[in-house]
C-alpha cells in the first residue's frame, strides 16, 4: 500500500497518539458513496474505484491517485454486501478504476504517517476482512476480476490480489508493484506478501525481487512471473475484460432468477454508552472497561426460507447478523479501551434451533446460503477481534446451533449451573426472569457450517488433538445441555452455581481488566488459532504481527523513520541493527 504523490507540507495528526481517534461510522449506501460506483449489466457487475481526493474520512490528507483510507474501504465493504444480497444474479464482478491514468496507488501514506498505531491496525484488519470477503464471493459464484486499467501499487495491487483473476493493461507504462519495503520501510501488510506466494504461487526469489523493486513489473514480465494473469493491449482491453467477465459468469452455478433484497440502513439508537438495535444491545461499562453484547433471538424466527425472502433484511436471522457485524465494527474501532466483551444471548432455545434448521436444510436457497456465509464472516470477525471475549450462559439464553458459535468464539465460557435462587442481587443482564436452567445445544452448525480462518470448526479448534472429547460432544447433538453436562463435556470453562456466580464473574472481569492489554491480545490471538495454518491465518497472524511490529519500530514510524520521511525529499535514517 503506497501512494505516489507530491509531498503535502502540513499533515494534521488526525488521531494523535494520546488522544481519542475520531468515531467511525460504518453506515453507508450507494447513494452516499463518494469513492465508488457500480453498474449491474446482466450477470456482470462493473465496479469503479473513483476516489474523491477531498473525501478523506478524517482531515489532513488528500486521497490523490485513487489512494484509499478507511472511508474508501467502508464503502467497498458495503458494496460487496449489496452485490451479495441485492444483486444475487450477478455472477462476475469487474473491479476497475474510474480514473484514466491509474488503478489505485494503495493506502494513503499521509494518512498512515499521521495515524495512531491502533488506527493503522484497525484499518488494516478491516481491509483484510473485506478482501477475504471478496474471495468468499468468488467461491460463492460471484467471481471477482481485477481489470487494472493503470498502475496498481501497494494496496492497489493487494486489492487486485484478492480477486480471482488479474488483467493488466499492457501500455508499456502501467505496472503492478509492492513498493512498501523499498519506499516506506513497512510491509505490503494487508495480504500482499502472503497472496503473492500463497495464492499466485510466485517463486520466493522472484517475490523477493518484486517486493523490493519499487516500480514493479508490467506487461509480459508480470505475466511470466504470475503477478497478473494477462497483459492486455489497450486496443483490446474492453473486449478482453468483457469476455473474461462473461466466461466467469458462464462458469457460475448461481441461481439465475434470484430476486435480491434491499439492505436498508440499520435501526440503531446510540447513547454515549449504549448501542441498541432491534435484536442486539450493547452496554458499555467504562469503569470496568467491559461491553455487554446481548443478542436477542425473537420467537418469531422460524425455519421457513420463504419468511426470509418475504422479510428480507428485517428477518431476525439476517437482522441479527447485520446488527452484530455493525456492533463489532463500532466497538472495535471506536472503543479501544473497552477491553473485555461479554457475549450473551436471550430468547427461546426453540427459536435458535429454528435458525439452525433454516441454515441446515436450505443451503440450496441463495438467500439462506448468503445469510449463512455472512454469519460465518461475522463469527470470523469475532475470532480476530483484539478483545477478551467471554460468554455468559445464563437462564433465558439460547446458545444453540448457530448461536452457540458466539460462545465458542469466546476465550472463555461461563455457564450458570441451575437457576438464580433467592438471591436478589443476581438478576439477568437481560432483565429476563428465568425459571429454567440455562442450556446450550450443539447441532450440525458446530460441525462444518462455520469454519474458522484455520479451516477448523470452533469445536474442532477447542478440542484440537482430542478426538474423543469431540466425539463425546457429537453424541450429545441436539440435546439441551445444562451447566454440569456442558462443563463435563468441556463446552464451558466453568459452571458456577448461583451462589458463586456473581463473585466469580466479577473477580474474573476485574482480574482480566488488570492485565496488560497487549499481552492479552497476543495471548488470545495465539490461543484462538490452534492447528493448521491457512492463507487467512497467515495474513491475520504472521503478516499482521510482523507488520504491526514494524509499524511501531522507529525505522518506520519514528521521526526519522521511512514512513515519516516519505515525500519530504529526505532519506530515512535507519537504525541498522537487524533484530
Amino acid at each position, binding site marked *: 500500500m503506497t501512494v505516489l504523490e507530491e509531498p503535502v507540507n502540513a499533515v494534521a495528526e488526525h488521531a494523535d497518539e494520546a488522544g481519542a481517534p475520531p468515531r467511525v461510522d460504518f453506515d453507508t449506501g450507494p447513494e452516499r458513496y463518494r469513492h465508488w460506483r457500480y453498474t449491474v449489466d446482466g450477470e456482470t457487475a462493473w465496479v469503479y474505484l473513483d476516489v474523491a481526493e477531498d473525501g478523506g474520512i478524517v482531515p489532513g490528507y488528500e486521497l490523490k491517485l485513487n489512494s484509499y483510507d478507511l472511508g474508501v474501504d467502508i464503502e467497498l465493504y458495503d458494496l460487496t454486501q449489496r452485490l451479495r444480497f441485492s444483486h444475487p444474479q450477478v455472477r462476475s464482478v469487474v473491479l476497475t478504476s474510474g480514473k484514466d491514468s491509474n488503478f489505485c496507488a494503495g493506502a494513503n501514506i499521509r494518512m498512515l504517517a499521521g495515524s495512531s498505531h491502533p488506527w493503522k491496525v484497525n484499518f488494516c484488519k478491516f481491509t483484510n476482512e473485506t478482501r477475504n470477503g471478496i474471495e468468499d464471493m468468488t467461491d460463492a459464484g460471484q467471481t471477482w476480476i481485477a481489470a487494472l486499467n493503470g498502475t496498481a501499487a501497494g494496496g492497489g495491487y493487494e486489492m487486485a490480489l484478492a480477486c480471482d483473476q488479474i488483467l493488466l493493461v499492457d501500455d508499456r507504462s502501467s505496472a503492478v508493484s509492492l513498493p512498501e519495503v523499498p519506499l516506506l520501510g513497512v510491509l505490503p501488510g494487508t495480504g500482499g506478501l502472503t497472496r503473492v506466494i500463497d495464492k499466485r504461487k510466485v517463486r520466493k526469489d522472484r517475490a523477493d525481487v518484486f517486493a523490493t523493486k519499487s516500480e514493479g513489473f508490467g506487461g509480459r514480465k508480470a505475466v511470466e512471473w504470475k503477478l497478473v494473469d494477462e497483459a492486455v493491449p489497450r486496443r483490446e482491453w474492453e473486449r478482453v475484460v468483457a469476455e473474461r467477465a462473461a466466461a466467469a459468469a458462464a462458469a457460475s452455478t448461481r441461481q439465475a432468477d434470484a430476486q435480491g433484497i434491499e439492505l436498508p440502513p440499520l435501526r440503531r439508537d446510540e447513547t454515549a454508552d449504549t448501542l441498541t438495535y432491534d435484536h442486539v444491545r450493547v452496554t458499555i461499562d467504562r469503569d470496568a472497561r467491559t461491553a455487554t453484547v446481548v443478542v436477542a433471538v425473537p420467537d418469531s424466527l422460524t425455519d421457513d426460507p420463504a419468511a426470509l425472502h418475504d422479510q428480507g433484511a428485517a428477518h431476525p436471522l439476517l437482522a441479527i447478523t447485520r446488527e452484530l457485524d455493525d456492533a463489532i465494527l463500532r466497538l472495535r474501532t471506536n472503543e479501544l479501551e473497552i477491553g473485555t466483551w461479554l457475549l450473551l444471548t436471550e430468547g427461546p432455545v426453540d427459536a435458535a434451533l429454528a435458525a439452525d434448521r433454516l441454515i441446515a436444510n436450505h443451503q440450496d436457497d441463495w438467500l439462506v446460503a448468503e445469510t449463512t456465509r455472512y454469519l460465518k464472516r461475522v463469527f470470523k470477525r469475532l475470532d480476530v477481534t483484539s478483545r477478551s471475549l467471554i460468554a455468559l450462559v445464563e437462564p433465558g439464553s439460547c446458545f444453540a446451533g448457530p448461536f452457540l458459535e458466539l460462545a465458542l468464539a469466546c476465550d472463555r465460557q461461563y455457564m450458570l449451573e*441451575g437457576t438464580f*435462587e*433467592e*438471591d436478589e442481587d443476581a438478576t439477568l443482564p437481560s432483565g429476563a426472569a428465568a425459571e429454567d436452567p440455562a442450556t446450550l445445544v450443539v447441532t450440525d452448525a458446530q460441525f462444518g457450517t462455520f469454519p474458522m480462518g484455520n479451516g477448523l470448526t470452533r469445536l474442532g479448534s477447542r478440542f484440537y488433538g482430542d478426538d474423543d472429547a469431540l466425539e463425546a460432544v457429537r453424541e450429545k447433538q441436539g440435546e439441551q445441555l445444562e451447566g454440569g453436562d456442558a462443563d463435563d463435556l468441556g463446552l464451558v470453562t*466453568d459452571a*458456577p*452455581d448461583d*451462589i*458463586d456466580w456473581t*463473585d*466469580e464473574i*466479577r*473477580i*474474573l*472481569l*476485574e*482480574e*482480566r*481488566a*488488570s492485565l496488560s492489554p497487549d499481552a492479552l491480545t497476543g495471548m488470545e490471538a495465539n490461543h484462538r488459532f490452534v492447528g493448521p495454518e491457512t492463507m487467512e491465518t497467515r495474513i491475520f497472524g504472521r503478516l499482521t504481527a510482523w507488520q504491526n511490529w514494524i509499524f511501531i519500530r522507529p525505522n518506520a514510524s519514528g521521526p526519522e523513520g521511512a514512513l515519516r520521511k516519505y515525500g519530504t525529499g529526505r532519506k530515512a535514517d535507519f537504525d541498522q541493527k537487524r533484530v
Partner: protein
Amino acid sequence: MTSARPKIDFDSKIPNNVDLAGDRKLQRALERWQPNFLDWWADMGPAVDTKDVYLRTAVDVGRDGWAHFDHVPMNEYRWGVFLSEHDPDRRIAFGEHKGEPVWQEVPGEYRADLQRLIVIQGDTEPASVEQQRFLGATAPSLYDMRNLFQVNVEEGRHLWAMVYLLHAYFGRAGREEADQLLARNSGSDDSPRILGAFNEETPDWLSFYMFTYFTDRDGKYQLGTLKESGFDPLSRTCEFMLKEEAHHMFVGTTGIDRVVRRTAELMQDHDTEEVAGAGGIPLTMIQKYINFHYTVSLDLFGNESSTNAANYFTAGLKGRWQEERREDDHLLADDAGAVDAFKNGQVTHNEVPALLALNQDLRHEYINDCRTGLKRWNRILAKAGIDAELYLPHVGFNRQVGAFAGASITPAGKVVSESDWNARKDQWLPTEVDKTHVRSLMHPVLEPGKIASWIAPPSTGINDKPVDFEYVHFH
C-alpha cells in the same frame, strides 16, 4: 439447591458477627468445611483426653466484653467468626490507592495476591496446633495445660477467620484453598505447611513458651501489617485476631518468666549455675533455646529486600506496622532505605528504595519488641542477685533466609569461618543432650495448684480465678 447434608444451626454453633444465618454462600461453604474441620481437630488437635477445660470463647467484638469464660468440652468449643467493628469512613492509608475508601470486596486485580497472603497466614494457624498436639500430656500444671488449649482453640479460631475470608470473598478458588489448609500438615513429608518454622516440632514446654514468645510474635507483626490492609474484611479480621494473639504472647512471656525465675531460685538454693541436676534448666540452655527460636522466627520475615512486599504495599494490600502512626507520605515511592547485607564476609548495609526494604522494616520492629522480654527476664535475674544476662543473638546468627542465609556469624555478631562456626555451634544452639535433658523434665502435673520442678508457679490465675483452680477436668 438440594442438599442431603444436615443443616447446621449456624448462629448457635458458630458465634459470629458476619450474619452467617443470612448468608447462603457462607452457609454452603461452611456446611462442607465445618465437618472437615472437626475431623481435623479430632485427628490433629490436642491428644490429651479431657472432660472439659476452662476456656475463653469469643462471643462479641464490643467493648463491654468480647469473651466468655467457662468450662467447655474441647470438641464442643464454639469456634466463631468475628470482625472488629466496621468503620464506614475508613480509607486506605498507604500505597497508590491511598485516600480511597477501603474495599469491601476483593478487587479482581489483587485477587491472587490477597488470596496468597490469606492462605499463608491461614496456614500457620492450624500448623501450631499440630506442632503442639502432644504437649498436653506433659503439662507442668493444669494452669499451663489450660493455657496450651486456649492457645490451640484460638489458633483454630484464627484458621476459621482466614477460612471465612476465603469462603466469603474468593469464590470457588477460595473454597478449594480452605480445604487445602486442612490437607497440609505440619511436618508432613507429602504436604507440609508452607513456612519452614511451622514444620518444626514443639517437643517440650520450653519450646512451647519460646514458640509463643518468638514465633507467635512474628504472627502478631504479620497480623499488624494485614490489619492495615485496604481490603477491609481482612483488616477487621486481623484486628480482632490481634486481641486473642495478645494472650498467646502472654503465655510465652510469662512462661519464660517462670522458667527463668525457677532457674534463678535453683541457682541460689544450690549455689551453682549447673541446675540441671536439681531438676532445673540452666541459663545457658535457656539462652540456646532463645537463640534457636529467635533466629528461626527472624527467617519468617523473608528476604531483607523484597519486591513482593513492595508490591503488596503499593497495591494497598499489606501496610507497615502502625502504618497510620507513621509520619511520612505513606507512598515511599521516592524514599531510600538501608537493608542488612552480607558482602565479602562482612556484615554491612545496602541502600535500596524504601519500598524494597519493608521486610527489614517489619523485622526491625519485631526485634525491638523481642528485646522487652529480655529486659524482663534479666530483671528477674538481677533481682535474684544473679550476675548473668540473657540476650538476643546477632541478627545474622543461624539464618536460613535472607542476606545472612548460610553466613557463619556468631551470636555476638562476629564473622567466623564455617568450620569454626560448626565447631562451636553446640555452645549456641540446643544440642541433643540439651533437648534430652529438657524432655526428661517433662512430667505431667495434674493436681490443681501443683507445679513441675523446673518452672515457677504463675503469680495469678486466669480470669480472676485462683492459681489452684481446677482449670481442666478429666473423665
